[in-house]
């Protein structure tokens, strides 16, 4: 192939100056993705009504709004959802306590922001300002921190999940004739 080489731009580097994801790394990521997925029967349980799909949708809706409100990146959102689903698939939250799912959503977003964001609002603010419409429950910082620990333990501290975001770079490069996509096409 006769690509004209621009000496100032190395095609083997991605935007972050990291080596471009190789086939080998992608294979490893696909394997690893399995460690970062909800338990196998999760979808079935949601469909059968064993877990309430409506409650999940509300929680995700809240996460999405709070995520946008604080201008967190797309990765924070997809990590939050990943933690939320993984946790629900292995941990039995008390059914009668409707606040529990909301607490889970807040703690998942807080954890995702800890991993991905440079600036974090106060935990209490995270709920109030993110709450669009009716603020049903507002939790104390201490309660959220305890929930965070429960999530971290339940998920065995595997918080650096492979999410769909992890693969975007690779597939964009693939469909772009193996040229690394420009920054604008990603954002």
């Amino acid at each position: 192939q006769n690509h004209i080489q621009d000496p100032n731009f190395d095609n083997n580097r991605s935007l972050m100056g990291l080596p471009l994801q190789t086939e080998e790394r992608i294979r490893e990521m696909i394997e690893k993705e399995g460690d970062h997925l909800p338990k196998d029967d999760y979808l079935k349980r949601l469909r059968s009504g064993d877990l309430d799909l409506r409650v999940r949708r509300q929680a995700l809706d809240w996460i999405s709004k709070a995520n946008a409100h604080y201008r967190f990146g797309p990765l924070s959102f997809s990590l939050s959802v990943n933690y939320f689903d993984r946790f629900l698939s292995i941990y039995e939250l008390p059914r009668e306590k409707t606040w529990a799912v909301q607490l889970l959503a807040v703690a998942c977003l807080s954890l995702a922001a800890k991993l991905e964001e440079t600036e974090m609002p106060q935990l209490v603010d995270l709920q109030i300002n993110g709450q669009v419409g009716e603020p049903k429950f507002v939790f104390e910082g201490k309660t959220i921190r305890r929930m965070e620990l429960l999530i971290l333990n339940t998920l065995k501290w595997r918080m650096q999940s492979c999410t769909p975001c992890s693969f975007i770079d690779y597939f964009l490069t693939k469909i772009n004739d193996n040229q690394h996509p420009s920054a604008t096409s990603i954002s």
Partner: protein
Amino acid sequence: MEKYTLFDEIGGGGGAYGKVYKALDTVSTEDVAVQVISVELGVPSTVTREISALKEMHHPNIVRLRDVEHTENQMFLVFEYLHINFKEYMDSIPDFANNPLTIKGFLHQILRGVAYCHAHEVLHRDLKPQSLMIDKDTNTLKVANFGLVRALGVPVNTYKSEVDTPCYRAPEMLLGSPNYLSSGDVWSIGCIFAEMVNQKPLFRGESEINLSKHIFSILGTPDEDNWPVATSSPKPKFRRQHPKDLATFVPNLDPVGVNLLSKMICTDPIRRITARDALEHQYFKELMQQVCFPAQNS
């Protein structure tokens, strides 16, 4: 924590956010290092990032996190026990710099560990001799102190205040680049390389500006075309200086070594060598032969 018996505090981990103790794993009877962190105000984001990064990385040149335990108020990170950090190790061996093969071996180990991190989209961001640990039994070097790591998926912001060791910081960071790239880690390794040879840091300066001045006094002030940071903010004024002969600053390093060093501390982060490419450099040729054919050398 009944599983572990804590002994003396050790400074070895250089833990910025918690004391490190030598301890005994009473089940396996192995020595371990336990870092105790207060979580009264919640699990710090640095700790969350460090643990989740280490959970995904398994490499002989990266410190192994064995276990994570916690009580209501404290967290315990259980690491494999490593004797001393690389700074202490170098200080303990007076003729360290006189053995080029030793330097080569350690540099290669640092690069292997960091290249693995970079392949896993993890940047260390605080590489210095104190954040590298040595297993004295095997002379294995392991990259530790992942407190400032950042897993990547999207461009990141810097954490200027968190990075408190300016001597190993790349010029683009000193001059306020908004992004920390993997090239920043390579610069730090270059500085460690020079320190192994000289037994003292190559670049010094109390402030970021003084450190930048010192760097440019040796490597030359970048001109408009190859300024390390592309920002719209006004560039600080530096006296125009021409690059000096790097070899005179590392008199004990052979020309091939100087060539590798110059590529690792290239002021332009875009043209700086990657950790992976550095591993393939001619400088390590001798080492590779020894690894492949140990019998011939013994």
